[in-house]
């Protein structure tokens, strides 16, 4: 009997459950598949429900309102009420619409949204699909959502829908480049597309593992990619690009309600609309999970050992707690940004991707390469860090200043004189 | 394991379908789609031969397919740009009405 390790409890339970099926390999495979997919399908819609509530409450507080408080204590049952309302609504399909495409669009959006979750490592030994090409698979399946948005916009036979769909395509294709390129820096530094290896890489910081116990507690934090200059810049680029990729504020032009009704969602109602809504949130979770994995150390948190165990890998707080905490923290930042920033104009949006984020992401790759080869002192990047940071900061300032349009005169207000 | 024949037959049929598209349709974009299908059929062949070949560790088939995909991307970009440019000139995407050289 191995001592109980809270970190690996679920993994051990799964293995224990599967050990009964050793004599039926086919059943065991099926059960293993179910055990790795059903939690995804169960947990993430739950997270989606919590997030809609958090978002409504948070936005309300930012706008000096109270937010939902009628259903249940603090309005916590609001998602359930919304869900019931959505399900009971009539499913209206426009008469002239392209029925098949109109029906398939939410499905095409939802399937990749759930599939990409499977390459995220939620904990040590807890990854639904441990594939060698995790990150690229994520980006590949993520790019399918562009198609779904187009299908929704085109099949509705509504000019607002079509405009929204075309805007979505232009936006998502443009922002995919900085998104992938800022991820490429991490892949380059890790030397692997495998998400588990990317997380493992961030836990290696020898100079702190060898020092005293107090610092060792921080050992798994210091190594996070976000604490390197290229990682910090990459994280910011990735985060901004992911906001655009999942059509969230301030890049929600495809569903800009003040201009084009609701964009590609205009002609959707009832259950299909709910599916759209849910897949948008699930892909938001997925992309936040990926940025957690790439830059924020995945499931690693402070090394708190359980007092009864000598196993160096044993952790008191399971890794998936840290993972979900980081994911939700990023989600909250997204809500915060939604409550703060106004929507961009279309040409500003495209210019921001092509003229600002893309050069910065390319610059980031060079800085990553320099950081990798810069001389170190006892494993500490004494040269790479400050110079890399300086280069990234200067290129940020320069590219930003080059992008500035002609300076407009200070606006003067002429009151009745 | 599925034998190599099967992959090759599928790839041959796909090539046939792509050729059919190129030869029988008059819309420029459909002709491009046919070309893409033929390219993909060739890619399937490369991968199948790589998998069944004696030296999969050399990854030759995969590398060739990778280059072929890159070239197909370039081809699609230039081809569609040409379609749009020609459309602006003739106001039709119909290949049979583009007859300036012919007349």
């Amino acid at each position, binding site marked *: 009997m191995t001592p109980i390790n809270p970190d690996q409890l679920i993994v051990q339970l799964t293995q224990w459950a599967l050990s009964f099926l050793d004599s039926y390999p086919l059943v065991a495979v099926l059960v293993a598949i179910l055990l790795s997919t059903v939690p995804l399908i169960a947990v993430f819609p739950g997270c989606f429900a919590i997030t809609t509530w958090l978002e409504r409450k*948070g936005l309300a*507080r*930012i*706008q*000096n*309102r*109270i937010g939902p*408080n009628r259903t249940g204590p603090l309005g916590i049952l609001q998602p359930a009420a919304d869900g019931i309302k959505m399900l009971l609504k009539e499913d209206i399909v426009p008469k002239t619409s392209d029925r098949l495409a109109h029906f398939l669009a939410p499905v095409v959006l939802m399937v990749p949204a759930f599939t990409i979750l499977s390459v995220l490592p939620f904990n040590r030994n807890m990854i639904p699909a441990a594939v060698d090409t995790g990150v690229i698979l994520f980006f590949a399946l993520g790019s399918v959502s562009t198609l779904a948005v187009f299908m929704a916009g085109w099949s509705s036979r509504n000019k607002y829908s079509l405009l929204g769909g075309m805007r979505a395509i232009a936006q998502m294709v443009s922002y995919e480049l900085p998104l992938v390129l800022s991820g490429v820096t991490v892949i380059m530094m890790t030397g692997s597309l495998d998400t588990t290896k990317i997380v493992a890489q961030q836990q290696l910081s020898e100079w702190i593992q060898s020092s005293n116990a107090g610092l060792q507690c921080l050992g798994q934090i210091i190594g996070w990619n976000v604490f390197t200059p290229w990682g910090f810049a990459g994280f910011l680029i990735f985060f901004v690009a992911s906001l655009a990729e999942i059509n969230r504020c301030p890049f929600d032009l495809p569903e800009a309600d003040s201009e084009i009704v609701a964009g590609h969602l205009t002609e959707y109602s009832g259950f299909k609309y709910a599916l759209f809504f849910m897949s948008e949130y699930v892909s938001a979770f997925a992309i936040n999970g990926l940025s957690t994995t790439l830059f924020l150390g995945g499931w690693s948190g402070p090394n708190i050992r359980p007092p009864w165990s000598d196993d160096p890998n044993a952790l008191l707080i399971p890794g998936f707690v840290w993972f979900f905490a980081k994911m939700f923290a990023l989600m909250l930042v997204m809500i*915060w*940004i939604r*409550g*703060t*920033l106004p929507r961009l104009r279309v040409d500003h949006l495209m210019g921001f991707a092509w003229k600002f984020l893309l050069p910065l992401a390319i610059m980031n790759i060079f800085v990553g390469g320099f950081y990798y080869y810069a001389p170190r002192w006892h494993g500490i990047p004494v040269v790479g860090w400050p110079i890399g940071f300086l280069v990234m900061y200067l290129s*940020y*300032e320069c590219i*930003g*200043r080059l992008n500035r349009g002609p300076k407009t005169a200070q606006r003067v207000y002429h009151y009745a004189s | 394991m599925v034998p190599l024949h099967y992959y090759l037959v599928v790839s041959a049929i796909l090539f046939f379908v792509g050729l059919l598209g190129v030869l029988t349709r008059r819309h420029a974009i459909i002709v491009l789609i046919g070309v893409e299908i033929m390219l993909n059929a060739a890619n399937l062949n490369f991968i199948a031969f790589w998998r069944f070949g004696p030296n999969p560790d050399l990854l030759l088939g995969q590398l060739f397919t990778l280059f072929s995909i890159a070239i197909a991307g370039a081809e699609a970009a230039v081809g569609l740009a040409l379609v749009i440019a020609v459309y602006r000139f003739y106001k039709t995407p119909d290949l049979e009405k583009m007859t300036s050289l012919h007349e």
Partner: protein
Amino acid sequence: MLGIGILKGMVVTAKNFFGSFVNKRLLPTIQYPEAGNSVTLFSRNIPFLVYDNDEDPLGTMRCVACKICEKECPPQCIYIVMEKDANGKPAKRPKVFDIDISVCMGCQICVEVCPFESIKMDSTFELSTPDRFEGLLLKREHLLKSNTYFHKIHPDEAQEVDDRLAAKQKKPAPTPSTPAA
């Protein structure tokens, strides 16, 4: 530095977010049906008829059915029929006093023109009814409200009115005595 404006904006919203938990000014919402809004002193909504004695509303109502307000009302939402006593003589009391509040625009002209201080502005706002014809036509019985109520909603104005009325009552008393003097 570039992008500092975005950070400033984020700080503002964060202040609003956290401030709404501690600062009453940053969360002005009132949960209406449970906690009613306090009405300000000068709020006015629809007219009501004042009476003096709580025991006998109909007897002590100030209105004499002079129909000035009916004539002056711009949207013509007041309808008055004077009461006649057994002899057929006018009884200086309205038999019918209707205000169609779906038409009333709250202009307060009826109050301005009333020589008897009998019609005043109310500040109640919960006027919703399930019936859009009869429910929005307020009868004499609905409109009659006591002077104490008037004191409660508009204390200053009610006091002023009371003083004026008292002065008026006093005035006629010396008038007959003048020839005697």
